[in-house]
């Protein structure tokens, strides 16, 4: 179905200058789109007038905020310029050091004292169950090679297209404030703010994972958590899980190698780990694996160096990323895919299971094909808002990119969002870093919930179908694929299971 131009570009986005982290609204890259946006803003009365004050960003929506923070829009007022401090109701705050008292004793009617303490008492979010310790940066993804024969993904549709991104790096199992150089895999999560919605790749610095069946996911993580009896590191558990899980020992080998103590977030390659589909405009698909190769190379600490760094600078990885970008250096990862035709994706033909996340695809047989580059060049502006509340989901895929029969991927597509609805809430899309600010259309059919502050229904009916608006996209229905059988059971479909080559 062709999309009428009247349905696209609902959110006016300011044009970028040449230094901006996107060119998708730039008159040079997309002249018609940029002109249409500018005219619509001018005639609709929705163009934002010059603001008199920062107002704590409360007169900006999440899309305005993240457009600036991501570097897609430059300039603007970004820091408090108010003439005096206030409480949350905008009432002038009398003094920094003196509570209201009777005879020197604090009173419950001191609303400034109470609001300050009550906010403080509630100021930490629930910690992520996995990947709690991390930091990130913004930048852009640039398509460098024509892959339109393989995928119809909008952000990959032409060479030179620049899409804003946010990347969050992390350790996996240690707690939020544990030392960065702990022995662990590193999370490598990318959010692409594309014109057909936010696309997340939620990967690692390892190309493989410790388990392949989702029912073992919590076991893998808990085996690396602390002993429930005494809260000490539980070495028995780490090794016992690996001793009892043959397929986990490729990731285990990487865990115990110096890849478990890389030099910061920077000197890592990133991997999508799972197998995904790329679907082209004709509905034909291939299977792919993502590789993000650090232009600056991989570097690891030895165990001694990592242990020393844990004490010398527990924030080493976070500091290294922050300071590198503050110095104006760009960090670049070249994006590659391995490609497999669906007819070949059969372990009986290949001798390995291409959908088993504990295995890799041989590069000689499936060569790396470059298609773009990730560039990080801008630090977040507020850690709690931009990093702590960032929410990535393997299920957040855009048209042209789809799932594969990988069972762990299938379940991750559900449970990351579930974890975030618990940690942040169902309206996490209103947090700027999660807002699909580049999307051509944004009209969610999910309503209400705690702290819903955007347009919510925006005049749409809360049921569908209805007689008033019918704007679905049948053209984006997923490419059908046929699986190997139609029997429901607990029977294993892992080809390597019970084989020596597992």
């Amino acid at each position, binding site marked *: 179905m062709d999309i009428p131009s009247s349905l696209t570009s609902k959110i006016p986005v300011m044009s970028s200058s040449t230094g901006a982290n996107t060119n998708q609204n730039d008159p040079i890259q997309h002249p018609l789109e940029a002109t249409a946006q500018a005219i619509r803003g001018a005639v609709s009365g929705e163009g934002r007038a010059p603001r008199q004050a920062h107002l704590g960003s409360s007169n900006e929506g999440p899309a305005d905020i993240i457009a600036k923070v991501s570097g897609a829009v430059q300039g603007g007022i970004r820091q408090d310029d108010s003439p005096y401090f206030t409480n949350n109701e905008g009432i002038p705050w009398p003094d920094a050091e003196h509570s209201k008292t009777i005879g020197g004793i604090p009173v419950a009617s001191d609303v400034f004292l109470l609001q300050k303490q009550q906010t403080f008492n509630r100021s930490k979010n629930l910690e992520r169950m996995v990947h709690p310790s991390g930091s990130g940066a913004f930048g852009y993804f640039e398509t460098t090679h024509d892959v339109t024969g393989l995928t119809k993904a909008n952000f990959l549709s032409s060479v030179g297209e620049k899409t804003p991104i946010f990347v969050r790096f992390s350790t996996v199992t240690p707690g939020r404030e544990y030392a960065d150089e702990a022995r662990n895999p590193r999370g490598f999560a990318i959010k692409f703010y594309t014109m057909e919605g936010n696309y997340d790749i939620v990967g690692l610095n390892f190309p493989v994972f410790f388990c392949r069946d989702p029912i073992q996911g919590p076991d893998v993580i808990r085996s690396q958590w602390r002993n429930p009896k005494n809260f000490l590191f539980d070495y028995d558990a780490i090794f016992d899980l690996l001793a009892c899980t043959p397929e986990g020992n490729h990731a285990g080998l990487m865990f115990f190698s110096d890849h478990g103590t890389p030099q910061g977030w920077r000197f890592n390659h990133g991997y999508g780990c799972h197998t995904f589909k790329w679907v082209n405009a004709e509905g034909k698909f291939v299977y792919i694996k993502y590789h993000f190769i650090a232009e600056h190379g991989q570097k690891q600490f030895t165990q001694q160096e990592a242990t020393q760094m844990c004490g010398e600078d527990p924030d080493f990885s976070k500091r290294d990323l922050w300071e590198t970008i503050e110095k104006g250096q760009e960090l670049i990862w070249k994006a590659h895919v391995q490609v497999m035709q669906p007819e070949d994706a059969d372990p009986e033909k290949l001798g390995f299971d291409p959908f088993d996340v504990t295995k890799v695809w041989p590069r000689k047989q499936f060569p790396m094909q470059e298609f773009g580059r990730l560039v990080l060049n801008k630090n977040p502006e507020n850690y709690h808002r931009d990093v702590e509340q960032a929410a990535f989901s393997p299920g957040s895929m855009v048209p042209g990119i789809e799932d594969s029969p990988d069972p762990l991927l299938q379940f991750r597509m559900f449970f990351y969002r579930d974890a975030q609805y618990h940690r942040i809430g169902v309206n996490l899309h209103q947090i700027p870093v999660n807002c699909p600010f580049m999307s051509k259309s944004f009209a969610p059919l999910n309503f209400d919930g705690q702290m819903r502050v955007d347009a919510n229904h925006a005049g749409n009916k809360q049921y569908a179908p209805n007689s008033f608006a019918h704007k679905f996209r049948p053209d984006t229905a997923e490419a059908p694929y046929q*699986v190997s059988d139609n029997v429901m059971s607990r029977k294993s479909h892992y080809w390597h299971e019970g084989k020596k080559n597992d």
Partner: protein
Amino acid sequence: MTEEERQNTIKNTVNMLKFVHVEVIQKKYLAQVYNIGVDYAKGIYDGLPKKSFEWSEVEKLAPDAHLWYKEAKFRPSQGERLTGVPPTGTVYN
């Protein structure tokens, strides 16, 4: 993996495996590693500061290590596997 990387991996593993209190966990873990590389497993075994079992016990365990906890009832046996191919006919109208 270079020789230095290999030796570091062995050393790093020893440094954590030595904290394991339960002998059978050490043995079973080494049996899994044996199936990746005998030299790698032997290197870890040799590096352990205290050994309460013989290397031959690891060798004895390794041949079946890939079957542990893979319940026979659920193992693939009739060609079950993960595939995803385009359907032979059209699906959408």
